[in-house]
């Protein structure tokens, strides 16, 4: 929306008003509240606060901090750690997990049992729940059939052996299962509350409103002023409450990123939070401040190609298009967020995966491929349309690529921007030639990206279908040896990139600002930062810094690299 770009004027002005040479930081450097509090932004109201139904980042931020699942992700490495489950056993075939739960309570004092997890997992896949993330429950055996309405929810292979023992059987021995289980879809649901509301004649769908809600995580909601703020207080019944440092978290619902930045500068936020992005046009300037941090993020920016529509039905043409893009220039001059240029879909180093080495830019080879495809002169090639959803950032990338294709290959490219829902409808109906997309990995495994290209995947907008590819992925998922599994996944990706049903451009990074007195926000590639690890540091070595001398500003102080948060433009949807 135009206003968003326009709002940027305000930030430009505020940037002008506060130079790093004054304090080294962007805006205030003292907390405006006591040490037990954190003020942050959520960038918007959540759709659902029901773990089974939630499907957006605005809800996820809250669920991760108000509910506790079987396992939790390490704040820096994301490695699965015990949470409600103290330990677990895995069967030899890697399909059956037995979790042993610690005795714990819901926030209303009701004991939490394995039955609450069974209830939740069945409810997730039950079509009656109408969860947009029902597919997350397809990892359990029988889950897919249940969400298609072909089997009863009770047939899900999840059972409580006793109050504190839970056994689940998976469809495939996937190695990322425990990590996937940290996702909010798999949090327990207080069945007793939903049933109680129903008997009292209250719509059980309203169970997450603050007057009713019962949770089992580190925090519980105590105030919800719609579209203004939510307030969370420490939940004394959380099993690990003694290690929760902040007493209160105030979460604001400021949608405009530039407004959020103004509020950060004025000290109304200690941290804009994972759901707030910094506007790309100010990144270069903001990067000069000491409270600026950048981290890789598990998300890839790419272009889908409709492989059915000529002239893009020819793989040689698709490869030529990919090779004619100067990705390094694109990242350095257009995206400008320190993104990692990539011609492969799966980011390098993801869960031990070695990225497919492909040239980031090879215009000579691109021209040669186009000739091989039978297009001796560029004017032989009909014009191609590139569709993107309305956004200043997507437009700039599209314009740059339009220029590169014109310069290197002589191809005429028409740009077409569409409002998000129209864009989605056209992408779904394959009503495009090339369209932009971003994909955020749900878990740290190459499969989260490679699954996109399978024949049956509803998110595959290339119309590319390859039986060998599908079989390689299926075989990889049946494989219980991790290195053999990765090898098969890699083989599949190589095969897919040869056919080029999509053109990867870069791996996202996350840039954000954190006040110098905020501690405990660790860097990780999924940009998840549990509040329970965050604290306000009252000892401040930087507080008594000498004012910088006039003239050239000194380099702003930078906190140790390891302490820093990740986070990317969560702009899958933006």
């Amino acid at each position, binding site marked *: 929306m135009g*206003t968003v770009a326009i709002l940027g*004027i*305000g930030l430009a002005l505020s940037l002008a008003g506060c130079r790093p040479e004054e304090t080294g930081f962007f805006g205030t450097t003292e907390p405006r509240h006591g040490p037990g509090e954190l003020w942050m932004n959520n960038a918007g109201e959540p*759709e659902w606060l029901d773990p089974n139904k939630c499907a957006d980042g605005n809800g996820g931020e809250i669920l991760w901090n108000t509910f506790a699942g079987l396992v939790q992700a390490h704040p820096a490495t994301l490695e699965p750690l015990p949470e409600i489950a103290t330990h677990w056993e895995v069967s030899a075939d890697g399909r059956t997990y037995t979790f042993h739960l610690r005795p714990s309570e819901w926030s209303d004092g009701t004991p939490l049992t394995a039955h609450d997890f069974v209830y939740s997992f069945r409810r997730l896949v039950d079509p009656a729940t109408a969860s947009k993330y*029902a597919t997350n429950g397809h990892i359990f055996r029988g889950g897919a059939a249940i969400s*298609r309405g072909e089997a009863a929810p009770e047939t899900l292979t999840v059972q409580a052996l006793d109050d504190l023992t839970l056994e689940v059987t998976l469809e495939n021995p996937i190695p990322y299962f425990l990590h996937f289980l940290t996702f909010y879809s798999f949090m327990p649901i207080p069945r007793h509350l939903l049933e109680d509301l129903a008997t009292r004649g209250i719509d059980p769908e309203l169970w997450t409103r603050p007057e009713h809600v019962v949770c089992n995580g580190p925090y519980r909601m105590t105030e919800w*002023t*719609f579209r203004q703020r939510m307030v969370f207080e420490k939940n004394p019944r959380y099993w690990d409450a003694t290690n929760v440092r902040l007493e209160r978290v105030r979460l604001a619902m*400021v949608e405009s990123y530039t407004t959020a930045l103004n509020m950060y500068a004025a000290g109304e936020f200690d941290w804009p939070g994972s759901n707030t992005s910094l506007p790309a046009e100010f990144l270069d300037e903001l990067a000069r401040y000491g409270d600026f941090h950048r981290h890789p993020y598990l998300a890839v920016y790419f272009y889908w190609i409709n492989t059915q529509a000529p002239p893009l039905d020819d793989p040689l043409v698709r490869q030529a298009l990919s090779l004619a893009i100067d990705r390094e220039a694109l990242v350095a001059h257009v995206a400008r967020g320190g993104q990692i240029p990539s011609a492969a879909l799966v980011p390098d180093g993801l869960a031990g995966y070695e990225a497919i080495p492909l040239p980031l830019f090879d215009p000579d080879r691109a021209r040669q491929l186009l000739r091989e495809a039978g297009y001796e002169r560029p004017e032989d090639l009909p014009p191609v349309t590139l569709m993107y959803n309305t956004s200043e950032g997507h437009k700039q990338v599209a314009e740059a690529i339009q220029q590169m294709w014109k310069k290197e290959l002589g191809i005429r490219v028409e740009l077409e921007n569409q409002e998000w829902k129209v864009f*989605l409808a056209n992408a779904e109906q394959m009503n495009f030639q090339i369209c932009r997309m971003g994909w955020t990995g749900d878990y740290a495994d190459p499969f989260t990206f490679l699954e996109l290209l399978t024949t049956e995947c509803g998110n595959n907008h290339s119309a590319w279908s390859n039986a060998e590819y599908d079989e390689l992925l299926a075989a990889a998922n049946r494989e219980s040896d991790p290195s053999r599994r990765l090898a098969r996944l890699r083989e599949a990706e190589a095969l897919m990139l040869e056919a080029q049903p999509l053109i990867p451009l870069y791996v996202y990074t996350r840039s954000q600002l954190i006040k110098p007195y905020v501690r405990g926000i660790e860097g990780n590639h999924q940009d998840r930062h549990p509040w329970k690890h965050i604290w306000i540091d009252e000892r401040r070595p930087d507080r008594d810094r000498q004012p910088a001398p006039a003239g050239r500003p000194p380099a702003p102080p930078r906190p140790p690299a390891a302490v820093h948060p990740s986070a990317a433009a969560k702009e899958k949807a933006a």
Partner: protein
Amino acid sequence: MKAYVIRRLLELIPTALIIILGSFALVRLAPGSPFSSEKEIPPEVRRQLDAKYGFDKPLPEQFVRYLGNLLVGDLGPSTKYPQRSVNEIIADGFPVSLTLAGVALVWSLLVGITAGIIGAVRQNTVWDHAAMAAALIGISIPSFVLGPLLVLLFSLRLHLLPPAGWGDLRHVILPGITLGTIYAASIARLTRGGMLEVVRSDFIRTARAKGLSERLVIWRHMLKGGLLPVVSYLGPAIASMLTGSVVVEKIFNVPGIGPYFVDAAFNRDYFLVMGIVVLYAFFLLLLNLVVDVIYGFLDPRIEYP
């Protein structure tokens, strides 16, 4: 007079119906669905969601049902905020937008009329030129420039007022000024123009001849005549302050209903879009009627047929 008002009220019914039908058709014919996202939803889940909100029924049936609910004051559920009804959302947001428009109105009247009087009384002096130059600037600066400028000055530099948010009196000042300034500028010009028009009329000369003090002449006689055009301007101005606060509410994160005007349409939140349109349409129709009636009081030459 009474008959006129009743007839006008009856005429509102077909107009309102056309507006409701038109916006219903437009929002439902737009491509996309409230439930679409970049992640595929299983078809069975999609079917359940459509059934829950009645989107699986034929459109005419949905329209009739919507009208029926509207008659009993039920604006339906929100698909984007499923924990809330459209009635709740509007009940939360509309008083906020009204408050903001009220502050903007007071600001625009105070500043506008003062500047207009100064301009008229000190016509062609430095004061007049300064007031009118300020008015010209006020009309020319859009709210998306003025808002951030005020934030920069009063929040980030002087630390006097919060840069955004809602809650207490301090939150209302900057957005109120941002929204009201453009109207203040128009009011200043109208006041000055209106006063200058009467300044040379016989009754002013008579008033002066009677020996009335200059203050009394200005306040009791000139201003009264001078404000006529301002009053007729206020009807549309109030309506546009109410409906035109989209940008100001975004900049200052004011939880009014302005932003829904755009966002609900982008989200295909069908019932919320309709609810906002119906509310705004109702207000605009009513304000137009009120203005027409007030004209009659101000100007005896107007007759109600």
